[in-house]
C-alpha cells in the first residue's frame, strides 16, 4: 500500500476522532466553567469539596481514567457506550485543567472590578456574569486553544477501547501490511494536519492576549 493509500485509510477514522473531540468538549467546557467559578467563589468546606472533585479528574492519568470508567462502571451495573466513556474521561480530565485556567483568570482580575460592580448596586452573581467572566474568558482564550489541542491529541487513547478512530485505523492497517515507517508517519501527519493550525492559532492568541497562565497549561 502506498503512502496516500495509507493516509486515506487512516483518515477514515477522522470522523470518530472528531466525534470524540466534540463530545469531549461537551463535558469539558461546562465542567471547567462551573468548577472554575465555584472554586473561585466558594469558601471553607465547600471549596475543599470542589477542589477534591477537580483534583480527582485532573490528577489521574487520562488513560487510567478511561480504563476505570470502561471496566469498572459495568461492575456497578452502569453500562455506557465506548464513545460516551471516552468523551467523559477525556472531557472531564481536560475540564479539570480548564477549571484551573478559569479560576486563575478570575483571580488575575483587579479587585477593583468586583468592588466597583458591588458599589454600583449589582448583585454578586451579576458582577460575575457581566464584569468578571467576560474579561476572564478573553484572557484565557490561548489556554482554551491549547487545551483543545490536548483534547484532540488525547482522543488517540480511545483506540485502546476499540473505537475506530485514526489511531485504531493505523493499527488495523499495520496488521494487514508491513510498513511501519509509512503507517506511523502517516498517522503523525494526520494528527499534525488537525492540530498544527490550532497550535499556530494558540501562539498568535498568546501574543495578542499576552497573559501567561502559569500552571494551567501543563499536560
Amino acid at each position: 500500500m502506498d503512502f496516500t493509500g495509507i493516509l486515506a485509510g487512516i483518515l477514515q477514522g477522522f470522523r470518530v476522532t472528531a466525534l470524540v473531540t466534540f463530545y469531549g468538549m461537551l463535558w469539558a467546557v461546562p465542567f471547567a466553567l462551573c468548577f472554575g467559578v465555584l472554586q473561585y467563589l466558594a469558601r471553607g468546606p465547600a471549596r475543599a469539596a470542589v477542589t477534591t472533585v477537580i483534583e480527582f479528574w485532573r490528577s489521574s492519568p487520562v488513560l487510567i481514567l478511561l480504563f476505570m470508567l470502561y471496566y469498572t462502571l459495568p461492575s456497578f451495573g452502569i453500562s455506557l457506550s465506548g464513545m460516551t466513556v471516552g468523551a467523559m474521561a477525556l472531557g472531564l480530565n481536560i475540564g479539570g485543567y480548564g477549571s484551573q485556567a478559569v479560576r486563575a483568570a478570575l483571580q488575575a482580575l483587579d479587585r477593583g472590578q468586583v468592588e466597583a460592580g458591588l458599589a454600583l448596586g449589582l448583585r454578586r452573581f451579576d458582577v460575575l456574569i457581566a464584569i468578571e467572566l467576560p474579561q476572564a474568558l478573553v484572557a484565557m482564550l490561548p489556554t482554551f486553544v491549547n487545551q483543545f489541542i490536548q483534547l484532540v491529541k488525547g482522543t488517540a487513547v480511545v483506540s485502546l477501547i476499540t473505537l475506530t478512530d485514526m489511531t485504531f485505523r493505523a493499527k488495523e492497517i499495520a496488521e494487514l501490511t508491513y510498513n511501519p515507517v509509512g503507517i506511523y508517519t502517516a498517522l503523525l501527519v494526520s494528527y499534525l494536519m488537525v492540530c498544527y493550525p490550532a497550535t499556530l492559532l494558540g501562539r498568535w492568541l498568546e501574543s495578542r492576549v499576552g497573559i501567561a497562565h502559569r500552571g494551567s497549561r501543563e499536560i
Partner: protein
Amino acid sequence: MKFDPDFALSVIPLILSGLGATLWAAVVASICAAALGFVLEMLRRSNRVLGYVLRFVIDVIRSTPVLVQLYFIYFVLPVTGLTLPAMTSGIIGLSIYYSGYLAEVFKGGIDSVDTGQFEAGKALGLNRFDLMWYVIAPQMLRNVAAPMGNYFISALKATPYLAVISVPEMLGLALEVGSNSFRYAEPVVVVGVIFLILAVAIGQLVRVLEARLLAPFKK
C-alpha cells in the same frame, strides 16, 4: 460481575512491584526532556534558518499525541536496525514529547529576563555560552521552576502510556492481571488509586522543593 474488594486488595502487591518502573521512567524522562528542551531552545536561538526549522520541529512534537509518538519510536526504530528494549523506547518517547513543551517553557523563561542583562553580558565581553550559562540561566530558573515542575508531574502521569508498548509498569501489570483473571475492574481501580496518591504526594513535594530552591531569589 460485581466489584470484588478482596480481589482488589490481593492484587496490590503485584501492581506495586511496577512502581519502580513507573518512577524510573518518569524521573529519567523528566531529566532528559529538560536537557533536550534546553538544547532545542538554545539551538533555536543560535541562527535564523535553524531557528525556523526547530520552531517547526517543536510544533510537530507538540501537535501530535504522545501515544502516536511512542508507537512511532517503538515500531519504526527496529526497521532502521535499531532494536531497543521497550523501556528505553518509552523513555525516549516521553523525553522527546516533553522536550517540546520544556523548550517553550525555557523560551518564556529567557524572554522574561531583562534585556539589560543580555546587554551587560555582551558589554563585559562574555561569549554566547558564558552569557547564557552564567548570567541568563540562573535568573531564568526563578521563572521556569513552576511550569517545569508541572511538566515533570505531567510526565509521571504519562507513564501509563508505556503499557501499550509492553513496558511492565503499574498499568501494564494491572492489565496483565486483568487478562489472566478476566477481571479488569479491580486492578485498574488499584492503579488509579495508587496514581492519585502519587500525583498528590509528588505535587506537594514539587511545591515544597520549589519554595526551598527559590527562597534565595524571592524579592
